[in-house]
């Protein structure tokens, strides 16, 4: 069957035949890096366009419809505008940190692409602590936000950054614990193992109650970690004008913007991998005919379909819910989500030990 894995294997084989192993590896690095960067750019364009269209249809509007067919090139035009705009650095700001912050935001988002399995045998780095790596790197993003808020020499930015710091640090706990629930069921931190374990059924369906609870907690925590409404306190427009990136303009603003969207993609991809089987097709027990039809759909399509479904879910939240207040936000995490996910982890462990899951 047609698969991205075959292509990567043949390229790898050809490179190793033609060049020395070291050079082949170097060329592969370059190829992968280029692909990661282009994926990054494409994701930014697609997701911004998607958000604008989704919000438009929810708000009885048409959305961008002038540039290109159905407004498809609107985001290109916006990107060009942002590239050409002057990037101002405020006088009282800490210039080094101010310029460093967006770069850190983008780097942390980019690093997170590494362990994600985009399709069958199509993964940049299948490291044995994949999930842990994701949790670790995603906390780097908060540094960039704090840095941006502090160095801007703007009170709105500072307030936004402080809020964001409190928020991300808190919600990382329940995000981590809900991921752990699945890790306990799988018995491995490796992304490929997690996907492989869902061949007979996705964890959302065969993981009983703990997987369901973990899924809900994960979606809430993921929305909070990416600073999306209803948890967009860091850039609460009606309160803090633009929060931590108030002072940023031009391409540096665009980098923050891009990092936000790529972060959304990544948390949704992680969610899809953990709970919805990654690139695994949808299988129902003994229905072999049905399962074969499902297998016929390329694995990359499965992965992106699931991921974009979750992205749509997060966009749906944003255009529906009002924003929480800072104390309510922290209450939700520390009083409800954290105890629930801790208890859920125990439950998942019990189920994994007893072997009650399917």
């Amino acid at each position, binding site marked *: 069957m047609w698969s991205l894995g075959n292509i990567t294997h043949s390229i790898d084989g050809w490179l190793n035949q033609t060049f020395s192993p070291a050079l082949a590896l170097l060329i592969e690095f370059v190829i992968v890096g280029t692909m990661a960067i282009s994926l990054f750019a494409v994701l930014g364009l697609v997701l911004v366009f998607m958000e604008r269209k989704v*919000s438009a249809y*929810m*708000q*009885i*509007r048409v959305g961008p419809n002038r540039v290109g067919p159905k407004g498809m090139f609107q985001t290109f035009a916006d990107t060009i505008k942002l590239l050409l705009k002057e990037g101002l650095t405020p006088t*009282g700001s800490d210039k080094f940190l101010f310029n460093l912050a967006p770069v850190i935001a983008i780097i942390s988002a980019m690093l997170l692409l590494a362990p994600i399995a985009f399709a069958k045998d199509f993964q940049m780095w299948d490291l044995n602590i994949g999930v842990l790596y994701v949790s670790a790197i995603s906390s780097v993003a908060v540094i960039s936000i704090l840095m941006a808020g*502090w160095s801007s*020499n703007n*009170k*709105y930015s*500072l*307030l936004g950054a402080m*809020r964001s710091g409190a928020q991300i640090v808190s919600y990382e706990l329940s995000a981590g614990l809900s991921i752990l629930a699945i890790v306990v069921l799988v018995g491995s931190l490796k992304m490929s193992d997690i996907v492989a374990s869902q061949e007979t059924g996705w964890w959302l369906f065969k993981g009983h109650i703990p997987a369901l609870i973990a899924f809900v907690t994960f979606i809430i925590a993921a929305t909070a970690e990416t600073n999306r*409404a*209803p948890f*967009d*306190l860091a850039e*609460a*427009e*009606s*309160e*803090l*004008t633009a929060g931590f990136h108030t002072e940023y303009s031009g391409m540096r603003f665009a980098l923050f913007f891009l990092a936000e969207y790529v972060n959304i993609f990544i948390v949704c991809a992680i969610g899809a991998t953990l709970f919805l089987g990654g690139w695994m097709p949808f299988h129902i027990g003994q229905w072999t005919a049905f399962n074969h039809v499902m297998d016929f759909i390329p694995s990359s399509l499965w992965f992106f379909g699931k991921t974009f479904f979750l992205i749509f879910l997060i966009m749906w939240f944003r*255009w*529906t*819910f*009002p*924003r*929480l*207040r*800072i*104390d*309510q936000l922290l209450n939700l995490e520390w009083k409800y989500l954290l105890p629930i996910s801790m208890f859920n982890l125990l439950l998942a462990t019990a189920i994994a030990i007893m072997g009650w899951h399917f």
Partner: protein
Amino acid sequence: MQNQTDILSTAQKVSPFGGDLEGASGDMIINIGPQHPSTHGVLQLVVTLNGETIKKVEPHLGFIHRSIEKMCESLTYRQFIYVTSRMDYLSSHINNHGCALCVEKGMQIEVPERAKVIRVLMDELTRIASHELWWGAMAMDLGAFTPFFLSFRERETITDIMEDTCGARLTMNYIVPGGVMAELHPDFQKKVKAFIKLFREKADQYNELVTGNIIFQSRMKNVGVLSKEDAISYGCTGPTARGSGVNCDIRKLYPYEVYDKLKFDEVIETGCDSFSRYLVRVKEMYQSISIIEQLIDNIPEGDFQAKTKAVLKLPKGEFYTRVETARGELGVYIVSEGATTPYRIKFRSPGFSNLSALNHMAKGGKIGDLVAMMGTLDLVIPDIDR
């Protein structure tokens, strides 16, 4: 000693709080406005913060002061009415109404029954349009964008109706002393009925989307508490005061035009918090719809304007009328010396006194609460500054 001051000044330079670092208390003073998304106009709030907690809110006014009262003094009694459209532009028709009532009171003009009904119909349509915009903006203040677009659908329907009859969508200038300026558009009744149908259909959906939302309720309940006593002593009127249980609907207390013949309830909530103020406005929209339903098929035949002299001269004396705008009580006070222009005009605008309660309400709350409170006060800055 020299050293110490040096250190202090360096600390101030390094501190991101800038020169606003007030001694050891660490209060942060932040300027919200005059250009800020949640002030809905050019209002400046100087907010003293301790972390996220508000210690003091100081509204600074005057950014959109156009001296409307002074302008009115140099305009004739027919002309000055239209300047008042620019005060509270969201209930411009009701502002005109209040001024026309005052002139009519002075001139003792008897307004035809048809004109009275048309005026009330337009009043209530304006009120709904204003509340629709408030509803959308309120939700947007709390971070939900979609309601803003939804509410504008209904508001557009109303402005279309207004445009048909009055020729303008926002500042209608439809009222003249002695009646209304022109006959109703032939489609008026049909379109208003279509609007009522649309409103009833959508309003329940909107309540489900926003009013019933748990995040929305937790943001609004027990926030911005304004007790009944405080509401009275700050001079709050309109939905702001009625949300604190104050009985203050001018349409009920001092009925003008045909309000005494209509069946409608004065919406009063006793919760005293932001959510009660929100509920008052939402329920008022339903009351306005019921008023329109009572009148729309019963517009009496006759003239739409009384015969008046070309040049109006109010007799010497003082005249005061009040109307219930979408924001509260609008008082129009005219001092006449018997000339063609008023000697002195004073407007008692609802927004000004409602805003004065903000500091009292906001103390101890969070910044997010402040935005919600300003939303429920339904501030229109040109109404405050005039």
